[in-house]
């Protein structure tokens, strides 16, 4: 019986959440009093496996195949089914990445078990895991328990566990190579190289002050109000995804997991609820101010200063006061 952590890398470079998942795995293995294996999947992953083996693990499982050079749901699910068949883990932990969104539900369905996605926390009762995940747009947290036969599969949210807490072992962990047979027809999709659309015209990562608007701004005609505040503060204007999706601001001003990651001195969130996909892009800001009319909005969980109010009342006053002090 063991815990299995599945790591992620892109062409030889670790995805930064991989070591957070290893940290989660170490906690789980300790609580469940069992061994901990970590898997690395790809083509020519010897170097990565060796790197991973420095962590405190019972073993590293390397699944290497030319057909696994690029991610495919079919190929990677087959590889991990093989690992599950061999190791018979009780719990399989993934980092919650876009790739894992694509892969883990398929893997879980193919072995007929639970996939508890995007956990922000984990605790144990009688050696069994209870996962904490956000629900209802982050307004509530839920304790979720896997049911049915193992292996139970779960993924951990970026930032929920600390990569630095993933302990090194006393010596290198043994590396076990698993061979899998993959034929031409086994992978039904073809994937191309990652690309970016017209590269970011504005780089917001250097901005010291960012005024960011969300759906609370209601209509495109109100954007100039936020713009006026950004100007008065000498900052840049940014937005949540729905604002850019609607074309009210250009895509290169989107903050979040599918947009830019910023860490200004001041991040002023106007009418933004604070969904995790937005928060990952701005939680490193030094000072966070949130203006939101809903006191239960999750953005207040990370705000230094909170104003529960209608932004259309507060923002004009901020512009007014800033104008006076010039």
């Amino acid at each position, binding site marked *: 019986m063991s815990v299995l952590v599945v790591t992620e890398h892109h062409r030889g470079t670790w995805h930064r959440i991989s070591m957070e998942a290893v940290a989660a795995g170490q906690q789980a293995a300790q609580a469940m009093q069992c061994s901990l294996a970590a898997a690395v999947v790809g083509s020519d992953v010897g170097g990565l496996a060796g790197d991973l083996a420095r962590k405190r693990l019972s073993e590293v499982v390397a699944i290497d195949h030319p057909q696994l050079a690029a991610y495919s*749901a*079919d190929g990677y699910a087959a590889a991990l089914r093989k690992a599950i068949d061999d190791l018979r883990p009780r719990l399989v932990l993934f980092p919650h*990445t*876009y790739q894992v*969104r*694509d892969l*883990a*539900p398929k893997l879980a*369905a*193919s072995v*007929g078990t*639970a*996939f*508890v*996605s*995007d956990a922000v926390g984990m605790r144990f009762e009688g050696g069994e895991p209870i996962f904490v*995940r956000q*629900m209802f*747009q*982050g307004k*509530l*947290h*839920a*304790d979720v*328990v*896997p*049911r*049915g036969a193992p292996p139970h599969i779960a993924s951990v949210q970026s930032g929920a566990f600390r990569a630095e807490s993933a302990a090194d072992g006393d010596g290198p962990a043994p590396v076990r190579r698993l061979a899998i047979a993959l034929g031409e027809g086994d992978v039904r*999709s*073809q*994937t191309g190289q990652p690309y*970016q*659309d017209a590269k*970011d015209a504005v780089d917001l990562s250097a901005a*010291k*002050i960012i005024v960011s608007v969300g759906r609370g701004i209601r209509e495109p005609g109100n954007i100039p109000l936020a713009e006026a505040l950004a100007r008065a503060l000498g900052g840049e204007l940014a937005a949540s*995804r729905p604002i*850019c999706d609607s074309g009210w601001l250009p895509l290169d001003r*989107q903050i979040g997991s*599918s*947009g*830019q990651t910023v860490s200004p*001195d*001041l991040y002023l969130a106007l009418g933004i609820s604070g969904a995790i996909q937005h928060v990952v892009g701005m939680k490193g800001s*030094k000072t966070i*101010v*949130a203006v939101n009319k809903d006191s239960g909005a*999750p953005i*207040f*969980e990370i*705000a230094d*200063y909170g*104003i529960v109010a209608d932004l259309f009342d*507060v923002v*004009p*006053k*901020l512009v*007014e*006061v*800033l104008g006076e002090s010039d």
Partner: protein
Amino acid sequence: MKIFVCVKQVMSRDAAVRVDGDGSWVRDDGVAFETNEPDTFALEEGLRLREKHGGEVVAVTAGPARASSTLREALAKGADRAIHIQDNRFARADTHITAAALAAAIGREPHDLILTGLQSDDAGYGQTGVILAEMLGLPHATIIMKIEASGGQFRCKRELEAGWFQTVTLPQPALLTIQSGINKVRYATLMGIKKARRKPVRRYSSADLGIDTQPRQEVQRLYQPQQGKQTEFLEGSAREVADQLLSKLRFEARVI
């Protein structure tokens, strides 16, 4: 092309979430419901593909009786017919049970393309579509921002993290999960709303479909999240709040 679009009815964005008596779900009395936002983009994408390639769009939901309004909305926007797997359990079923029900209903008919949203706004599992694909033996791709159908293939633009994309090509039939913002959704016209009344809605019960009803995960308890940081809330008139905030930013946080 026979296109199935899975649409879920969820509590409206502005609804106050109140934890239910036994603490394991939310109260749904006196709240408004709407179609899960990514699903509206999925429906629009299905309608556009039908307009280009011909065929049929079928809207499918698994939900309580109230979810029929979500199907009516899809029909009014242009779906040809609808399937309602009606059972109160789907208000809070786990993804395995929901996907099994959708698979049983859709699996009975020929299908070229199944579209779902990438994630539901209430439970936010982000997995029902992929499980459904696996249950039906279909290839899938997630977080799709563009679909081109030709020569028995779907060529898709898949969103990756941090503003990156990738092209994924899949053979037909396939399942795709749609990201918000892929298109501009249409509104139902008065004519569409009228026509919708005459469009067929097929109803199934869970028993009709004989689905596996053993949950794979269970929500034990819902609660307010703990405050991560100490937030200082500023109160008073708009002018007072503005004065306070600016002086805090100048003299306390020293960021302006």
